[in-house]
């Protein structure tokens, strides 16, 4: 069965410092993986996607993620946090049918 585990429910960083949001997945076949961001009272915005091409995936707003099959991980990083990055982040695995399985989410707090 496919599943996603986000290892931290809450991450707090200072503005200008690196961001690391951790995600492990379980899949019986080569997965398609996504990171989405949700700002308060908003829908979900796609940050980036992995679909079995390059293992290092670059997304919008300076975010990137690395697919590591040996560790079944897909961690999201950004070199320097900005106040506008404060939001809820979801790691998502897509089944071959297109059904999305979401992690529980990580709240990113950015302190001035």
């Amino acid at each position, binding site marked *: 069965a496919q599943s996603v585990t986000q290892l931290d429910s809450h991450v707090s960083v200072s503005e200008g410092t690196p961001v690391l949001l951790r995600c492990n997945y379980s899949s019986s076949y080569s997965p398609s993986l996504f990171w989405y961001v949700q700002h308060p009272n908003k829908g*979900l915005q*796609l940050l980036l996607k992995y*679909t*079995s091409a390059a293992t290092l995936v670059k997304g919008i707003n300076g975010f990137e993620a690395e697919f590591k099959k040996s560790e079944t991980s897909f961690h999201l990083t950004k070199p320097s946090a900005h106040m506008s990055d404060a939001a809820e982040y979801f790691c998502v695995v*897509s089944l*071959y*049918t297109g*059904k999305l399985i*979401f992690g*529980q989410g990580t709240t990113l707090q950015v302190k001035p």
Partner: protein
Amino acid sequence: DAGVTQSPTHLIKTRGQQVTLRCSPKSGHDTVSWYQQALGQGPQFIFQYYEEEERQRGNFPDRFSGHQFPNYSSELNVNALLLGDSALYLCASSFSTGSNQPQHFGDGTRLSIL
């Protein structure tokens, strides 16, 4: 280029009532999926529509039903509303049903049951 649009943005209903939520997909998209997001949780898949048919369904009771129209827009209907149905309902659209097709989400409909 308009993205995914949902209506209404907010809705208040009482237990036992019925509700209809609407979604217009992003231009060029033909597949619509619906998700329920309870407070503080990740979205849960309800069902997916493609070519006007329900293609797959999550673990939701028959009180939840839907429809897709020839212009690809979609409706989500919920009958006999329960307090536990209070949630943000998200619509997502994509081009085809493949796993590598990113889904684009609307801002959702906030449904409150009194």
